[in-house]
C-alpha cells in the first residue's frame, strides 16, 4: 500500500539553503577535532620514539678536568645505577654496555675502513626492535641498529662530501659489511648488517648477548664498561630531574630536551585548534537546531493537522530526527574521509624522517562515532522539545 511521505510534507517544499553554512561548519568542526587528537598522538610518538607514555633520556658523565687527568671515571658503576633508579621521578634505568675490544669496520667497495664501537641496551628500551635483531653464539652476522640521526648525517653530509649518492634505508639494509673484532692473533672476522633505525638512541646498538659474549672472549676477567645510561621518565621537563642531573654532573642529550620543548609548543597550538574545533562545532550544531526549529514553526499547520488526524508526536519528531541524523552521519563520514586522507599524507611525510611505526590514536577512532551520537542526541532532544509544545 502506497503512503504519503511525512518527510515530503516537512521538507518537500522548503529550501534547505539555510542549512549549507551550518553543515559546512559542522563538517570542519568534526574534521578538525579528531585531526588534532591524531596530530598530538603523532607528535608524541615521533618525539618519544614510539607509542609510549614515557620519554627516554640518554645520559653520560660530564667530562671535567678530574676525568681528563684520570682521577675520575666516566663509567657508571652498579651502585650509581641503583641510586639513579631509586629517584622518584625516574621510572627505570638501563645501563649502556660498551665493547672492550677493538672494532674495525671495512667499508664497501674497498674504500678502506674505520674504527667503530658497539653499545648494547636491554631490548625493552629500544623503540625499534625488528625480529632480525637477534644474535646467538655461532652466528657470524651481527645485527645492528643505528640512529636515524646518523643515517640522516650519512646521506646529507658524509656521502655527498665523498661525491656519493645518498643511500635509501632499504638499500643500506642489504649491505653486509666485514668487521674485525680485537687485535693480533685473536682477531675475529665477522659481518655487520644494519637491521633498524632508532629515534631514541643516538648510538650503535647490537644485541646485549653479543657484547657480553665478545667482551668475555677478548677480556674474560674484565667487567663490561658502561659510559652511558638511558633514563625512562614520565616527564623530561620535571625540575627535580634536571636538578638531580646537574648536581651529579650528568649530561643529557640536549636534543631530547629541545624536542620536549617542541612538543610542548605543538601541544599548545593543538589545544588552540581543538578549542576552535569545539567552538565551530557548537555554533554549527546550534545553527542546525535553529534551522530545525524554523522548519517546525513553518510546518505548524501541517503538524496540527497530523495530530488532529491521529498521528502521535513521536511519529512527527522521528521523521525530522531521522532526516537530520542522516545528514549528520553523511557529514561525519565525509569528515572522516578527509581526515584519513590528511593523516595518510602526514604519516607518509613523517616516515621520510622517522622510523617510528605510527599508529592511529584512540581519540581519532572514537571521536567521530561519539560526536555523531552526541550531536544526534542533542538535535533529537531539541526537536522533541519543540514538538512537545504541540498539545492538541
Amino acid at each position, binding site marked *: *500500500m502506497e503512503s*504519503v511521505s511525512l518527510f515530503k510534507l516537512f521538507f518537500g517544499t522548503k529550501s534547505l539553503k539555510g542549512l549549507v553554512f551550518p553543515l559546512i561548519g559542522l563538517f570542519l568542526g568534526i574534521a578538525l577535532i579528531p585531526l588534532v587528537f591524531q596530530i598530538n598522538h603523532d607528535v608524541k610518538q615521533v618525539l618519544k620514539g614510539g607509542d609510549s607514555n614515557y620519554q627516554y633520556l640518554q645520559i653520560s658523565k660530564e667530562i671535567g678536568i678530574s676525568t681528563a687527568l684520570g682521577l675520575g671515571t666516566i663509567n657508571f658503576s652498579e651502585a650509581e645505577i641503583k641510586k639513579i633508579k631509586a629517584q622518584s621521578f625516574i621510572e627505570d634505568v638501563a645501563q649502556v654496555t660498551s665493547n672492550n675490544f677493538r672494532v674495525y669496520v671495512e667499508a664497501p667497495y674497498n674504500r678502506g675502513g674505520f674504527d667503530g664501537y658497539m653499545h648494547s641496551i636491554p631490548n625493552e628500551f629500544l623503540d625499534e626492535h625488528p625480529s632480525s635483531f637477534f644474535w646467538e653464539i655461532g652466528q657470524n652476522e651481527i645485527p645492528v641498529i643505528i640512529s636515524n640521526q646518523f643515517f640522516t648525517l650519512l646521506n646529507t653530509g658524509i656521502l655527498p662530501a665523498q661525491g656519493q649518492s645518498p643511500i635509501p634505508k632499504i638499500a643500506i639494509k642489504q649491505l653486509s659489511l666485514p668487521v674485525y673484532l680485537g687485535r693480533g692473533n685473536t682477531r675475529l672476522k665477522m659481518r655487520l648488517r644494519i637491521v633498524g633505525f632508532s629515534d631514541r638512541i643516538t648510538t650503535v646498538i647490537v644485541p646485549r648477548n653479543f657484547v657480553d659474549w665478545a667482551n668475555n672472549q677478548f677480556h674474560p676477567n674484565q667487567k663490561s664498561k658502561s659510559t652511558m645510561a638511558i633514563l625512562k621518565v614520565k616527564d623530561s621537563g620535571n625540575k627535580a630531574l634536571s636538578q638531580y642531573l646537574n648536581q651529579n654532573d650528568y649530561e643529557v642529550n640536549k636534543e631530547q630536551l629541545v624536542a620536549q620543548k617542541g612538543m610542548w609548543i605543538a601541544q599548545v597550538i593543538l589545544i588552540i585548534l581543538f578549542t576552535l574545533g569545539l567552538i565551530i562545532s557548537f555554533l554549527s550544531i546550534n545553527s542546525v537546531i535553529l534551522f530545525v526549529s524554523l522548519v517546525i514553526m513553518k510546518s505548524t499547520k*501541517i503538524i496540527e493537522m497530523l495530530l*488532529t488526524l*491521529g*498521528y*502521535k508526536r513521536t511519529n512527527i519528531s522521528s521523521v525530522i530526527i531521522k532526516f537530520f541524523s542522516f545528514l549528520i552521519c553523511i557529514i561525519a563520514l565525509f569528515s572522516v574521509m578527509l581526515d584519513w586522507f590528511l593523516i595518510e599524507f602526514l604519516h607518509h611525510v613523517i616516515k621520510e624522517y622517522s622510523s617510528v611505526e605510527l599508529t592511529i590514536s584512540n581519540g581519532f577512532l572514537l571521536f567521530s562515532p561519539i560526536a555523531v551520537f552526541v550531536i544526534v542526541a542533542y538535535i533529537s532532544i531539541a526537536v522533541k522539545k519543540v514538538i512537545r509544545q504541540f498539545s492538541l
Partner: protein
Amino acid sequence: MNIKLKNIAPHPLIGAFSPSTDIWGKAITIEKGSKVLILAPSGSGKTTLVSVLYGLRKDFDGELFFNDESTSVFDIDKWSDIRSNSIAVVFQDLQLLADLTAMENILLKNQLTNQFSRAKIEEMANQLGILNKLNSKCNNLSRGEKQRVAIIRALCMPFKFIILDEPFSHLDEINTQKAIALINKIVASNKAGLIMVNLFADNHFNYVSQIKMV
C-alpha cells in the same frame, strides 16, 4: 463505546448558553451504535462540541466519559489512539491540506491503520463521483468536492463513532444521498454509532434521538 457528557460547560460559553439546552451543563449519554442528531444553530457551540468530543479542546468544566472512563486523565497519545482507532470526524472546515492531492489527503489518514486498499478508496471516490479528482490538489477542488474527500478520509479508519459536522452543506441532493449511502454502509460494517451535528433538523440517518443545543 458509549459517550457520556456530564455537566459539560465550555469556558467561553459559561453564562451564555440557554437553560433549555440538552447538552451544556446537562448529563446525557449517547449509547453504543446509536445514531443521534444534534441540532445546533449558528453560534450555539456546535464546533466547540465537536472539538470537546474529539479532544481538541480541554477548556471546559464538567466531565466527558468514553465507556465510563473519564477523558480528563487521557494524555495526548491516548487521544491520538482514539483519533486513529475510535472516533472519526468530518470537520465543518474540512481540515484538508491544500498542497496535497485529494488521494494524498485520504492516504494520510488511511496509512495510520491501513484500513483500506487503494482500490477500495478509488471505489469509494467513484461512488461519490470524485474519482477523476483524486489526483488534483485540494486547492483546485470545489467546496463540494472537498467535502466528499473529507467524508472518504473520515471513513478510512476503524471507528466506534463518527461525528459529522455539517458534512453535506455544499452537496446537492443526489450527491448527499450517495454520501449517506456510503456512510451508512461503513458505519454498519464498523457496528459504529453516528453523531450528526447540523443547523437544521434532517432525516438523513435513522436517528434514535434528537438533541437540542439551544
